[in-house]
């Protein structure tokens, strides 16, 4: 009995695999044809959709004579449109004369813009699962699928994880088509292309590979498609599923693709020659290739005046290092290099540490763990309780622990500043990596002091130098150095200076604008 079950499951899996990887029209499972006999078709369909309450079968007669069947999935199709544009014209007696072939019917009777003729069950179930209503008719070995999908979707909201102060407020939502439209509305050129593809044995999730023809290097596009092609997975529910399958170096704490829920960020990256992958069911799109510096940039950099943008960028780099190293440096200074701390400060720290029973390392770990736990708890708890947690955190951990002599006040300050610093990193995935890497550095600092921190940083630097994202060195344009590209990394140069697209991704089509557009009275006069 069990063996039989397994066999069925296996064949089922194989069938699904073929639908995802093979070409739709040539796979053998595709060959199951639609019969001319409508009763047989109905029987087959009912068997396929056994125990699926949401699949609706509606029998009706075309022109009061011929038997026909409408199949759709409840909640995924637009019922009003079906009634108005499919059922009511087909049931009229006057269409009798068109009942000779499907194409004639489609051409003359059915007032639906997106129509597809289907000749196999495979394609039929696929269309059905995308919410398309299907009509089968007696005497025809073709079915018709109508593009009348409609389902509830979250309205377009402000992206939560990537807020900007001034700038577009739209964020992607979970529906691929809506997301694609948002990109199309930003890049209206016909050279903006979107190729679709299905991934997932069971989910057959639709993804779209977007690029601008003439900007994206064809080899990059090919590489992206190849890497996606290899994926054979049960389901894709979020972009990280794909991210981890297409990364260059899977054992790295650093994300090698950029994930964003901002259409403006995605569009800007498309214009720099990168490739965007939209995945149905998640608001986060994948942008490849990515560099470390791309993870450190926010849309706000470009929506502020360039001087402010530059200053904020520098601030972020400083706080990146604080988030990474501050507790480690504190441990190193307190354990090995007390002489570096100014005397007055050293005295006050020593005084507040007098009652603390733990060594600095234990104290740091205690506080860091507590802080991370508070942050995690704050994320998971319902909003109403969230504020309670922060009160408990601030009062109990901050005040009471210090008064009780469990931790010292400077330690609280160190952990708090580190916490704030990690929030300045604009990408959540990057900030998680930095939070993780803090702990090995703390241990190294307690073993070897500043030397340990340096060795840790060297390891980190070396690792970053080995990383690549779709062939682009992760630290470019700093290492390998490309001097002219630094003006969009170290500083944010004004737009009239950014004539060239970024190195590597932009080499295919170097210039993004006409040179010499710096505004000024002399040029404006036209002399």
């Amino acid at each position, binding site marked *: 009995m069990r063996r039989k079950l397994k066999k069925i499951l296996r064949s089922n899996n194989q069938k699904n695999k073929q639908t995802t990887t093979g070409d739709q029209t040539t796979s053998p499972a595709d060959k199951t044809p639609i019969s001319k006999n409508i009763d047989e078709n109905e029987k087959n369909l009912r068997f396929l959709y056994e125990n699926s309450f949401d699949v609706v079968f509606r029998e009706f007669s075309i022109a009061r004579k011929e038997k026909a069947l409408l199949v759709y999935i409840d909640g995924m199709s637009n019922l009003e449109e079906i009634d108005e544009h499919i059922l009511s014209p087909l049931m009229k007696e006057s269409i009798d004369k068109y009942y000779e072939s499907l194409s004639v019917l489609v051409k003359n009777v059915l007032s639906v813009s997106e129509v597809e003729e289907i000749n196999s069950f495979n394609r039929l179930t696929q269309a059905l699962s995308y919410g398309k209503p299907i009509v089968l008719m007696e005497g025809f070995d073709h079915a018709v699928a109508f593009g009348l999908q409609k389902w509830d979707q979250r309205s377009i909201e402000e992206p939560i994880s990537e807020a900007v102060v001034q700038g577009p407020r739209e964020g992607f939502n979970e529906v691929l088509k809506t997301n694609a439209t948002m990109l199309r509305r930003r890049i209206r050129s016909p050279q903006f292309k979107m190729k679709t593809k299905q991934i997932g044995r069971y989910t057959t999730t639709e993804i779209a590979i977007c690029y601008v023809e003439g900007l994206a290097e064809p080899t990059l596009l090919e590489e992206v498609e190849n890497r996606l092609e290899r994926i054979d997975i049960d389901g894709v529910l979020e972009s990280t599923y794909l991210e981890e399958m297409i990364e260059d170096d899977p054992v790295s704490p650093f994300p090698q693709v950029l994930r964003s829920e901002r259409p403006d960020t995605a569009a800007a990256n498309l214009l720099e020659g990168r490739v965007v992958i939209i995945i149905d069911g998640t608001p986060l799109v994948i942008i490849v290739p990515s560099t470390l510096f791309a993870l450190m940039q926010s849309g706000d950099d470009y929506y502020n005046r360039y001087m402010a943008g530059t200053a904020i960028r520098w601030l972020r780099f400083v706080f990146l290092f604080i988030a990474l190293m501050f507790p480690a440096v504190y441990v190193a200074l307190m354990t090995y290099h007390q002489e570096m701390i*100014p005397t007055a400060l050293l005295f006050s720290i020593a005084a507040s540490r007098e009652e603390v029973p733990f060594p600095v390392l234990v104290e740091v770990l205690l506080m860091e763990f507590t802080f991370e736990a508070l942050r995690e708890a704050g994320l998971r708890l319902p909003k109403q309780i969230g504020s309670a947690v922060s009160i408990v955190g601030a009062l109990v951990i901050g005040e009471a622990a210090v008064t009780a002599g469990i931790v010292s006040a400077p330690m609280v300050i160190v952990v708090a500043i580190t916490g704030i610093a990690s929030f300045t990193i604009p990408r959540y995935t990057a900030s998680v990596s930095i939070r993780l890497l803090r702990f090995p550095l703390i241990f190294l600092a307690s073993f*070897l002091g500043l*030397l340990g921190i340096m060795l840790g940083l060297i*390891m980190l630097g070396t690792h970053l*130098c080995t990383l690549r994202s779709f062939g682009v060195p992760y630290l470019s344009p700093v290492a390998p150095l490309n001097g002219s590209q630094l003006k969009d990394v170290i500083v944010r140069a004004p737009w009239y200076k950014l004539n060239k697209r970024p190195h590597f991704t932009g080499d295919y089509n170097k210039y993004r604008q006409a040179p010499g557009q710096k505004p000024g009275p002399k040029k404006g006069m036209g002399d």
Partner: protein
Amino acid sequence: METGKISGLQMAIMMHSAILATVILLVPAIMAKEAKQDLWIVPITASIAGFLALFVIIQLHKYFPKKTFIQYSEKIIGRIPAKILSFVYILFFLQTTSVMFRQYAEFVSGNFLLKTPSIVIIASMAFVCAFAVRGGIEVVGRTAQLFIPTVTILFLFLIIFLFNEMDVENMYPVFENGIMPIIKASSSPAAWFSEFMIISFMLPFLKEREGGMKWGIISIVSVVILMVITNITSLFVFGETTVKLTYPIMSAARYISVGDFFEHLESVIMAIWVLSVFIKISVFYYVLVLGTAQWLELSNYKPLVLPFGFLLTVMSVWTPNLPELTDYLKRVSPFNLPLFYLVIPTILLVVAKVRKLSTTH
């Protein structure tokens, strides 16, 4: 074997720290012994050895553009003699690299981590370097490009903070004892400059084929400039007493005081110095591993990286302690380094010229 490519700038930076990293700490005192207040001129005269080594290697490189020293020695003096010579070279690189580890360990354990056993200090560095060397020349080049500019800028900043302590009078009288003491004092740094020979192991991987000479010269000049700055700093701050200090620059760092808040920055000096020592050791470690792989005609050098890491750690524990090491650097290095870095390559070049080897290998 090595598929990576480096840019001329990366090569220059790697060579820069391969020379400068250890020189900057120990050598001012050694130079000051003979040259006294003229020690700032010494790097300039000593750099001649660097230019010579560069010239010889570039000439040899022209004969065999895609081969390293180990590989083309075979073409010049025949297979068996070349194998023996290469083996001696590998032993030599093994020894010099382990001396570098020892210098590093002596410096760190003598000044900062007094109680940490030196094997921990050496092994941790060996591990980090092995990590970089495994990545190949490309990764070493990129890390150098990432770290060394930062190191240099921080170093110059620290020197600016020392301006208060400097006394220009310490420089006079210039050429008090004529030119001879300067030439004598040059012997030790000249030995270091001849280390430029290892550029032979980078030239085949250079992206811009013709840029070797240009970037080599830039690299030497930058080393000279930084050495002069270092010497002038220790001369201006300490004057004649430079001789008595083991690490003049470190001692100078103790004088730094910025706004009465940043004081005792020796640890910072150590921290940034570790970065450039890391590059130096990685470069030599890479040369050692690559050279061995080419000597054994292996298809890949990566399996050799970890074993050599262990070997280097052990060898550097065997290496004598600081006083003996300083003595060694003063008495032996001026002879054995130029022998391997300058004399033997020159002989090879002469042989190649005499045998009129064609340049189309």
